Protein backbone atom coordinates (compact mmCIF):
# COMPACT_ATOMS: atom_id res chain seq x y z
CA UNK A 1 0.00 0.00 0.00
CA UNK A 2 1.62 3.18 -1.12
CA UNK A 3 -0.44 5.97 0.35
CA UNK A 4 0.06 9.47 -0.82
CA UNK A 5 1.22 11.68 1.97
CA UNK A 6 -0.79 14.63 0.77
CA UNK A 7 -3.90 12.81 1.77
CA UNK A 8 -6.51 14.34 -0.55
CA UNK A 9 -9.41 13.44 1.77
CA UNK A 10 -8.20 15.26 4.80
CA UNK A 11 -7.53 18.45 2.92
CA UNK A 12 -4.69 19.32 5.30
CA UNK A 13 -1.28 19.84 3.91
CA UNK A 14 -0.07 20.84 7.35
CA UNK A 15 0.73 17.76 9.36
CA UNK A 16 1.69 19.09 12.76
CA UNK A 17 0.56 22.45 13.98
CA UNK A 18 1.63 23.88 17.32
CA UNK A 19 0.30 27.18 18.50
CA UNK A 20 1.07 29.43 21.44
CA UNK A 21 3.43 26.93 23.03
CA UNK A 22 4.77 28.00 26.38
CA UNK A 23 7.32 26.08 28.37
CA UNK A 24 9.43 26.90 31.36
CA UNK A 25 11.97 24.79 33.20
CA UNK A 26 13.51 25.62 36.52
CA UNK A 27 11.67 28.96 36.39
CA UNK A 28 13.44 29.90 33.17
CA UNK A 29 11.02 30.52 30.31
CA UNK A 30 12.31 28.55 27.34
CA UNK A 31 9.76 29.79 24.84
CA UNK A 32 6.37 31.43 24.94
CA UNK A 33 3.82 32.05 22.25
CA UNK A 34 5.69 29.79 19.90
CA UNK A 35 3.82 28.83 16.71
CA UNK A 36 5.10 26.17 14.40
CA UNK A 37 3.51 24.45 11.45
CA UNK A 38 5.09 21.57 9.65
CA UNK A 39 3.61 20.52 6.35
CA UNK A 40 4.16 17.54 4.17
CA UNK A 41 7.12 18.12 1.89
CA UNK A 42 9.18 20.35 4.11
CA UNK A 43 12.05 20.14 6.53
CA UNK A 44 12.17 22.37 9.58
CA UNK A 45 15.43 22.85 11.42
CA UNK A 46 15.16 24.04 15.01
CA UNK A 47 18.17 26.18 15.77
CA UNK A 48 19.41 27.68 18.96
CA UNK A 49 22.35 27.79 21.28
CA UNK A 50 22.97 25.13 23.92
CA UNK A 51 20.19 25.10 26.46
CA UNK A 52 17.82 27.14 24.35
CA UNK A 53 15.15 24.45 24.46
CA UNK A 54 15.43 22.52 21.23
CA UNK A 55 15.29 19.08 22.78
CA UNK A 56 12.46 20.16 25.03
CA UNK A 57 10.50 21.41 22.04
CA UNK A 58 10.95 18.19 20.10
CA UNK A 59 9.88 16.08 23.06
CA UNK A 60 6.80 18.23 23.48
CA UNK A 61 5.93 17.86 19.82
CA UNK A 62 6.19 14.09 19.86
CA UNK A 63 4.22 13.76 23.06
CA UNK A 64 6.95 12.56 25.43
CA UNK A 65 6.92 15.75 27.48
CA UNK A 66 3.61 17.03 28.74
CA UNK A 67 4.81 19.97 30.85
CA UNK A 68 3.73 22.74 28.52
CA UNK A 69 0.90 25.07 27.71
CA UNK A 70 -0.55 25.58 24.26
CA UNK A 71 -2.16 23.46 21.57
CA UNK A 72 -0.77 20.88 19.26
CA UNK A 73 -2.83 19.61 16.35
CA UNK A 74 -2.18 16.59 14.18
CA UNK A 75 -3.82 17.00 10.76
CA UNK A 76 -6.13 19.51 12.28
CA UNK A 77 -7.27 17.37 15.22
CA UNK A 78 -6.13 17.64 18.78
CA UNK A 79 -3.07 15.51 19.41
CA UNK A 80 -4.47 13.80 22.47
CA UNK A 81 -7.45 12.48 20.52
CA UNK A 82 -5.48 11.50 17.47
CA UNK A 83 -2.69 9.97 19.50
CA UNK A 84 -2.77 6.55 17.92
CA UNK A 85 -2.88 7.87 14.38
CA UNK A 86 -0.17 10.32 15.17
CA UNK A 87 2.12 7.72 16.70
CA UNK A 88 1.78 5.40 13.77
CA UNK A 89 2.89 8.05 11.33
CA UNK A 90 5.69 9.61 13.38
CA UNK A 91 9.16 8.45 14.29
CA UNK A 92 11.38 10.06 16.90
CA UNK A 93 15.10 9.57 17.48
CA UNK A 94 16.42 11.46 20.46
CA UNK A 95 19.71 12.07 22.20
CA UNK A 96 19.38 8.57 23.60
CA UNK A 97 18.90 6.62 20.44
CA UNK A 98 17.07 3.52 21.65
CA UNK A 99 19.57 0.86 20.62
CA UNK A 100 19.94 -2.02 23.05
CA UNK A 101 23.58 -2.82 23.59
CA UNK A 102 23.15 -6.55 24.04
CA UNK A 103 21.09 -7.18 20.96
CA UNK A 104 22.51 -7.08 17.46
CA UNK A 105 21.57 -4.36 14.97
CA UNK A 106 19.28 -6.82 13.22
CA UNK A 107 17.43 -7.74 16.40
CA UNK A 108 17.17 -4.11 17.43
CA UNK A 109 15.62 -3.16 14.14
CA UNK A 110 13.28 -6.12 14.13
CA UNK A 111 11.84 -5.07 17.45
CA UNK A 112 11.61 -1.40 16.49
CA UNK A 113 9.74 -2.36 13.36
CA UNK A 114 7.37 -4.66 15.22
CA UNK A 115 6.27 -1.78 17.44
CA UNK A 116 4.78 -0.21 14.34
CA UNK A 117 4.32 -2.92 11.75
CA UNK A 118 6.52 -6.00 11.39
CA UNK A 119 8.55 -6.23 8.21
CA UNK A 120 10.64 -8.95 6.70
CA UNK A 121 14.31 -9.49 7.29
CA UNK A 122 15.52 -8.53 3.84
CA UNK A 123 14.36 -4.97 4.31
CA UNK A 124 16.24 -4.82 7.61
CA UNK A 125 19.45 -6.09 6.08
CA UNK A 126 19.05 -3.69 3.18
CA UNK A 127 18.49 -0.75 5.53
CA UNK A 128 21.57 -1.59 7.58
CA UNK A 129 23.57 -2.03 4.41
CA UNK A 130 22.54 1.36 3.13
CA UNK A 131 23.89 2.89 6.32
CA UNK A 132 27.25 1.22 5.95
CA UNK A 133 26.67 -1.55 8.46
CA UNK A 134 26.99 -4.49 6.09
CA UNK A 135 28.81 -7.28 7.98
CA UNK A 136 27.87 -5.72 11.29
CA UNK A 137 24.29 -7.04 11.32
CA UNK A 138 24.97 -9.74 13.87
CA UNK A 139 27.49 -8.15 16.20
CA UNK A 140 26.14 -7.06 19.60
CA UNK A 141 25.72 -3.30 19.59
CA UNK A 142 27.97 -2.88 22.61
CA UNK A 143 30.85 -3.73 20.33
CA UNK A 144 30.01 -0.99 17.87
CA UNK A 145 31.63 2.43 17.87
CA UNK A 146 29.70 5.57 18.75
CA UNK A 147 29.04 6.45 15.13
CA UNK A 148 28.02 2.93 14.22
CA UNK A 149 25.46 2.88 17.02
CA UNK A 150 24.06 6.13 15.71
CA UNK A 151 23.80 4.51 12.29
CA UNK A 152 21.83 1.59 13.70
CA UNK A 153 19.34 4.04 15.12
CA UNK A 154 19.13 5.95 11.87
CA UNK A 155 18.42 2.85 9.83
CA UNK A 156 15.05 2.81 11.59
CA UNK A 157 14.16 5.68 9.32
CA UNK A 158 14.53 3.44 6.29
CA UNK A 159 12.22 0.71 7.51
CA UNK A 160 9.61 2.94 9.07
CA UNK A 161 6.47 3.86 7.20
CA UNK A 162 6.20 7.13 9.17
CA UNK A 163 5.75 10.34 7.24
CA UNK A 164 6.95 12.68 10.01
CA UNK A 165 10.51 12.31 11.24
CA UNK A 166 11.51 14.07 14.46
CA UNK A 167 15.26 13.91 14.93
CA UNK A 168 17.32 15.38 17.75
CA UNK A 169 20.88 16.03 16.57
CA UNK A 170 20.94 13.05 14.22
CA UNK A 171 24.38 14.01 12.87
CA UNK A 172 26.14 13.47 16.19
CA UNK A 173 29.25 11.26 15.88
CA UNK A 174 28.63 10.57 12.18
CA UNK A 175 31.69 10.81 9.99
CA UNK A 176 31.80 12.98 6.86
CA UNK A 177 30.31 10.33 4.61
CA UNK A 178 27.64 9.56 7.16
CA UNK A 179 26.62 13.20 7.29
CA UNK A 180 26.33 13.39 3.50
CA UNK A 181 24.38 10.20 3.39
CA UNK A 182 21.91 11.29 6.03
CA UNK A 183 21.43 14.61 4.28
CA UNK A 184 20.52 12.83 1.08
CA UNK A 185 18.13 10.56 2.99
CA UNK A 186 16.42 13.59 4.46
CA UNK A 187 16.08 15.25 1.07
CA UNK A 188 14.72 12.07 -0.45
CA UNK A 189 12.11 11.72 2.28
CA UNK A 190 10.98 15.31 2.07
CA UNK A 191 10.85 15.26 -1.70
CA UNK A 192 8.71 12.12 -1.54
CA UNK A 193 6.17 14.08 0.46
CA UNK A 194 7.39 13.40 3.99
CA UNK A 195 8.17 15.95 6.67
CA UNK A 196 11.17 16.33 8.96
CA UNK A 197 11.77 18.32 12.13
CA UNK A 198 15.32 18.21 13.36
CA UNK A 199 17.90 20.00 15.44
CA UNK A 200 21.53 20.28 14.58
CA UNK A 201 24.39 22.69 15.13
CA UNK A 202 25.89 21.82 11.82
CA UNK A 203 25.32 23.77 8.60
CA UNK A 204 22.65 21.75 6.85
CA UNK A 205 23.13 20.99 3.18
CA UNK A 206 19.95 19.44 1.82
CA UNK A 207 18.33 19.58 -1.57
CA UNK A 208 14.75 20.01 -0.56
CA UNK A 209 12.45 22.63 0.80
CA UNK A 210 13.65 23.61 4.24
CA UNK A 211 13.43 26.43 6.71
CA UNK A 212 14.84 27.13 10.13
CA UNK A 213 13.27 28.22 13.36
CA UNK A 214 15.76 29.97 15.59
CA UNK A 215 14.86 29.84 19.25
CA UNK A 216 17.59 32.34 20.15
CA UNK A 217 16.43 35.07 17.80
CA UNK A 218 12.83 34.55 18.91
CA UNK A 219 13.89 35.14 22.47
CA UNK A 220 16.00 38.15 21.50
CA UNK A 221 12.99 39.60 19.67
CA UNK A 222 10.70 39.08 22.64
Amino acid sequence: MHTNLHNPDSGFSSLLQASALFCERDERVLFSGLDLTVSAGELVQIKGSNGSGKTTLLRILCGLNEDYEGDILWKGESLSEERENFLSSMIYIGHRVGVNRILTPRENLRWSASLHAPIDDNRIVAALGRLGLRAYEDIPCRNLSAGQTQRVALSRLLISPACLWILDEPFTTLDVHGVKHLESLLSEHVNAGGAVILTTHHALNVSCQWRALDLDSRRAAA
Partner: protein
Amino acid sequence: MNKPLSDGAGSDISTWQAFCATLKRDLVIAFKRKNDLLNPIMFFLIVVSLFPLGISPDPVELSKVSAGVVWVSALLASMLSLDNLYRADYEDGSLEQLLLSPQPLYFLVLAKNIAHWLISGLPVVVLSPLLAYMLYLPSEAYWTLVLTLMIGTPVLSLFGSIGVALTVGLGSRGLILAVIVLPLSTPVLIIGAKAVTDVMFGLPVGSHFALLGAILALALTMAPLASAAALRISVN
Protein backbone atom coordinates in the same frame (compact mmCIF):
# COMPACT_ATOMS: atom_id res chain seq x y z
CA MET B 1 11.93 5.37 -2.08
CA ASN B 2 9.38 2.64 -2.44
CA LYS B 3 8.16 2.12 1.07
CA PRO B 4 4.55 2.62 2.03
CA LEU B 5 4.24 5.79 4.07
CA SER B 6 1.38 4.87 6.33
CA ASP B 7 -0.68 7.11 8.48
CA GLY B 8 -3.17 4.58 9.79
CA ALA B 9 -3.54 3.07 13.24
CA GLY B 10 -2.53 -0.38 14.42
CA SER B 11 -4.85 -3.33 14.03
CA ASP B 12 -5.45 -6.21 16.42
CA ILE B 13 -3.07 -8.41 14.51
CA SER B 14 -0.26 -5.94 14.73
CA THR B 15 -0.94 -5.49 18.45
CA TRP B 16 -0.56 -9.22 18.87
CA GLN B 17 2.62 -9.17 16.82
CA ALA B 18 4.04 -6.30 18.86
CA PHE B 19 3.18 -8.24 22.02
CA CYS B 20 4.99 -11.32 20.79
CA ALA B 21 7.97 -9.36 19.50
CA THR B 22 8.39 -7.61 22.84
CA LEU B 23 8.10 -10.83 24.79
CA LYS B 24 10.58 -12.50 22.50
CA ARG B 25 12.99 -9.56 22.64
CA ASP B 26 13.17 -9.62 26.43
CA LEU B 27 13.67 -13.37 26.47
CA VAL B 28 16.39 -13.12 23.84
CA ILE B 29 18.19 -10.48 25.89
CA ALA B 30 18.01 -12.71 28.94
CA PHE B 31 19.25 -15.72 27.00
CA LYS B 32 22.13 -13.77 25.55
CA ARG B 33 23.24 -12.69 28.95
CA LYS B 34 22.95 -16.23 30.26
CA ASN B 35 23.50 -14.89 33.74
CA ASP B 36 20.01 -13.54 33.75
CA LEU B 37 18.72 -17.06 33.49
CA LEU B 38 21.01 -18.63 36.00
CA ASN B 39 21.05 -15.90 38.55
CA PRO B 40 17.52 -15.97 39.94
CA ILE B 41 17.98 -19.64 40.67
CA MET B 42 21.37 -19.14 42.22
CA PHE B 43 20.20 -16.22 44.24
CA PHE B 44 17.23 -18.16 45.51
CA LEU B 45 19.47 -21.05 46.48
CA ILE B 46 21.92 -18.82 48.25
CA VAL B 47 19.41 -16.81 50.20
CA VAL B 48 17.65 -19.95 51.26
CA SER B 49 20.92 -21.33 52.51
CA LEU B 50 21.76 -18.12 54.34
CA PHE B 51 18.96 -18.72 56.78
CA PRO B 52 20.14 -21.99 58.22
CA LEU B 53 23.55 -20.35 58.44
CA GLY B 54 22.20 -17.36 60.30
CA ILE B 55 19.60 -19.15 62.37
CA SER B 56 20.44 -22.71 63.23
CA PRO B 57 20.99 -25.99 61.43
CA ASP B 58 18.48 -27.74 63.67
CA PRO B 59 15.83 -29.55 61.57
CA VAL B 60 13.03 -28.87 64.04
CA GLU B 61 13.71 -25.15 64.15
CA LEU B 62 14.15 -24.98 60.41
CA SER B 63 11.02 -26.86 59.51
CA LYS B 64 8.99 -24.30 61.44
CA VAL B 65 10.36 -21.36 59.52
CA SER B 66 10.83 -23.07 56.16
CA ALA B 67 7.62 -21.89 54.47
CA GLY B 68 8.34 -18.29 55.44
CA VAL B 69 11.94 -18.49 54.35
CA VAL B 70 11.12 -19.93 50.93
CA TRP B 71 8.47 -17.30 50.38
CA VAL B 72 10.66 -14.41 51.52
CA SER B 73 13.48 -15.66 49.33
CA ALA B 74 11.16 -15.96 46.35
CA LEU B 75 10.07 -12.41 46.91
CA LEU B 76 13.62 -11.12 47.19
CA ALA B 77 14.73 -13.07 44.10
CA SER B 78 11.89 -11.65 42.10
CA MET B 79 12.59 -8.16 43.42
CA LEU B 80 16.30 -8.14 42.75
CA SER B 81 15.80 -9.02 39.14
CA LEU B 82 13.16 -6.32 38.75
CA ASP B 83 15.79 -3.71 38.16
CA ASN B 84 16.49 -5.27 34.78
CA LEU B 85 12.89 -4.78 33.75
CA TYR B 86 12.97 -1.19 32.48
CA ARG B 87 16.30 0.27 33.56
CA ALA B 88 18.38 -0.65 30.53
CA ASP B 89 15.55 0.37 28.23
CA TYR B 90 15.30 3.69 29.98
CA GLU B 91 18.95 4.39 29.71
CA ASP B 92 19.40 3.53 26.08
CA GLY B 93 16.19 5.22 24.97
CA SER B 94 14.28 2.04 24.05
CA LEU B 95 11.65 2.94 26.60
CA GLU B 96 10.87 6.13 24.70
CA GLN B 97 10.44 4.01 21.59
CA LEU B 98 8.08 1.72 23.48
CA LEU B 99 6.00 4.66 24.66
CA LEU B 100 5.84 6.05 21.14
CA SER B 101 4.46 2.83 19.72
CA PRO B 102 0.94 3.13 18.35
CA GLN B 103 0.10 -0.21 19.99
CA PRO B 104 -1.73 -0.18 23.33
CA LEU B 105 0.88 0.15 26.03
CA TYR B 106 -1.04 -2.27 28.24
CA PHE B 107 -0.06 -5.22 26.07
CA LEU B 108 3.56 -4.17 25.65
CA VAL B 109 3.99 -3.76 29.39
CA LEU B 110 2.23 -7.07 29.96
CA ALA B 111 4.63 -8.74 27.55
CA LYS B 112 7.59 -7.38 29.46
CA ASN B 113 6.10 -8.51 32.76
CA ILE B 114 5.44 -12.01 31.47
CA ALA B 115 9.02 -12.21 30.22
CA HIS B 116 10.23 -11.16 33.63
CA TRP B 117 8.16 -13.83 35.32
CA LEU B 118 9.36 -16.52 32.93
CA ILE B 119 12.94 -15.57 33.74
CA SER B 120 12.77 -14.94 37.45
CA GLY B 121 9.55 -16.45 38.81
CA LEU B 122 9.17 -19.75 37.02
CA PRO B 123 12.62 -21.10 37.94
CA VAL B 124 11.91 -20.31 41.56
CA VAL B 125 8.64 -22.22 41.41
CA VAL B 126 10.33 -25.20 39.79
CA LEU B 127 13.15 -25.20 42.30
CA SER B 128 11.06 -24.69 45.41
CA PRO B 129 10.46 -28.37 46.29
CA LEU B 130 14.19 -28.97 46.50
CA LEU B 131 14.70 -26.04 48.83
CA ALA B 132 11.69 -27.02 50.86
CA TYR B 133 13.34 -30.37 51.28
CA MET B 134 16.59 -28.81 52.38
CA LEU B 135 14.74 -26.77 54.96
CA TYR B 136 12.84 -29.81 56.23
CA LEU B 137 9.39 -28.66 55.19
CA PRO B 138 6.97 -31.54 55.89
CA SER B 139 6.35 -33.30 52.62
CA GLU B 140 2.55 -32.96 52.73
CA ALA B 141 3.01 -29.21 52.25
CA TYR B 142 5.10 -29.40 49.06
CA TRP B 143 2.24 -29.15 46.64
CA THR B 144 0.71 -26.23 48.46
CA LEU B 145 4.03 -24.42 48.42
CA VAL B 146 4.50 -24.94 44.68
CA LEU B 147 0.93 -23.94 43.88
CA THR B 148 0.98 -20.81 46.01
CA LEU B 149 4.28 -19.78 44.46
CA MET B 150 2.85 -20.48 41.02
CA ILE B 151 -0.01 -18.08 41.65
CA GLY B 152 1.95 -15.68 43.81
CA THR B 153 5.13 -15.03 41.84
CA PRO B 154 3.35 -13.54 38.80
CA VAL B 155 1.72 -11.11 41.21
CA LEU B 156 5.14 -10.16 42.50
CA SER B 157 6.33 -9.48 38.94
CA LEU B 158 3.23 -7.47 38.09
CA PHE B 159 3.28 -5.35 41.24
CA GLY B 160 7.02 -5.03 41.14
CA SER B 161 6.75 -3.63 37.65
CA ILE B 162 4.75 -0.69 39.00
CA GLY B 163 7.49 0.09 41.47
CA VAL B 164 10.24 -0.02 38.86
CA ALA B 165 8.19 2.00 36.44
CA LEU B 166 7.71 4.71 39.04
CA THR B 167 11.37 4.88 39.94
CA VAL B 168 13.07 4.21 36.64
CA GLY B 169 13.76 7.88 36.01
CA LEU B 170 15.34 8.47 39.38
CA GLY B 171 19.04 8.29 40.04
CA SER B 172 18.92 5.89 42.93
CA ARG B 173 18.55 2.19 42.41
CA GLY B 174 17.56 -0.91 44.15
CA LEU B 175 16.37 0.30 47.44
CA ILE B 176 13.57 2.70 46.64
CA LEU B 177 12.28 -0.17 44.64
CA ALA B 178 12.31 -2.35 47.71
CA VAL B 179 10.54 0.28 49.70
CA ILE B 180 7.74 0.59 47.19
CA VAL B 181 7.50 -2.99 46.03
CA LEU B 182 7.79 -4.85 49.30
CA PRO B 183 4.73 -3.36 50.94
CA LEU B 184 2.72 -4.10 47.80
CA SER B 185 3.82 -7.69 47.89
CA THR B 186 3.33 -8.30 51.58
CA PRO B 187 -0.28 -9.53 51.31
CA VAL B 188 0.71 -12.17 48.77
CA LEU B 189 3.56 -13.24 50.98
CA ILE B 190 1.37 -13.52 54.04
CA ILE B 191 -1.34 -15.50 52.31
CA GLY B 192 1.12 -17.79 50.57
CA ALA B 193 3.11 -18.57 53.69
CA LYS B 194 -0.06 -18.95 55.72
CA ALA B 195 -1.51 -21.47 53.28
CA VAL B 196 1.61 -23.60 53.56
CA THR B 197 1.66 -23.41 57.34
CA ASP B 198 -2.03 -24.26 57.50
CA VAL B 199 -1.51 -27.36 55.43
CA MET B 200 1.20 -28.40 57.85
CA PHE B 201 -1.39 -28.19 60.62
CA GLY B 202 -3.99 -30.00 58.54
CA LEU B 203 -6.23 -26.96 58.13
CA PRO B 204 -8.25 -26.26 54.94
CA VAL B 205 -6.60 -23.87 52.51
CA GLY B 206 -9.26 -23.32 49.83
CA SER B 207 -9.98 -19.78 50.91
CA HIS B 208 -6.32 -18.84 50.71
CA PHE B 209 -6.16 -20.06 47.13
CA ALA B 210 -9.35 -18.21 46.26
CA LEU B 211 -7.87 -15.03 47.63
CA LEU B 212 -4.55 -15.50 45.84
CA GLY B 213 -6.41 -16.18 42.60
CA ALA B 214 -8.45 -13.04 43.02
CA ILE B 215 -5.34 -10.98 43.64
CA LEU B 216 -3.72 -12.43 40.53
CA ALA B 217 -6.76 -11.62 38.42
CA LEU B 218 -6.79 -8.08 39.76
CA ALA B 219 -3.06 -7.69 39.18
CA LEU B 220 -3.27 -8.98 35.62
CA THR B 221 -5.93 -6.48 34.67
CA MET B 222 -4.84 -3.44 36.63
CA ALA B 223 -1.09 -3.59 37.24
CA PRO B 224 0.03 -3.21 33.61
CA LEU B 225 -2.20 -0.15 33.32
CA ALA B 226 -0.59 1.36 36.39
CA SER B 227 2.88 0.47 35.11
CA ALA B 228 2.11 2.04 31.76
CA ALA B 229 0.94 5.25 33.38
CA ALA B 230 3.97 5.29 35.65
CA LEU B 231 6.31 4.82 32.70
CA ARG B 232 4.78 7.78 30.90
CA ILE B 233 5.39 9.93 33.96
CA SER B 234 8.95 8.71 34.48
CA VAL B 235 10.00 9.37 30.91
CA ASN B 236 8.48 12.83 30.83
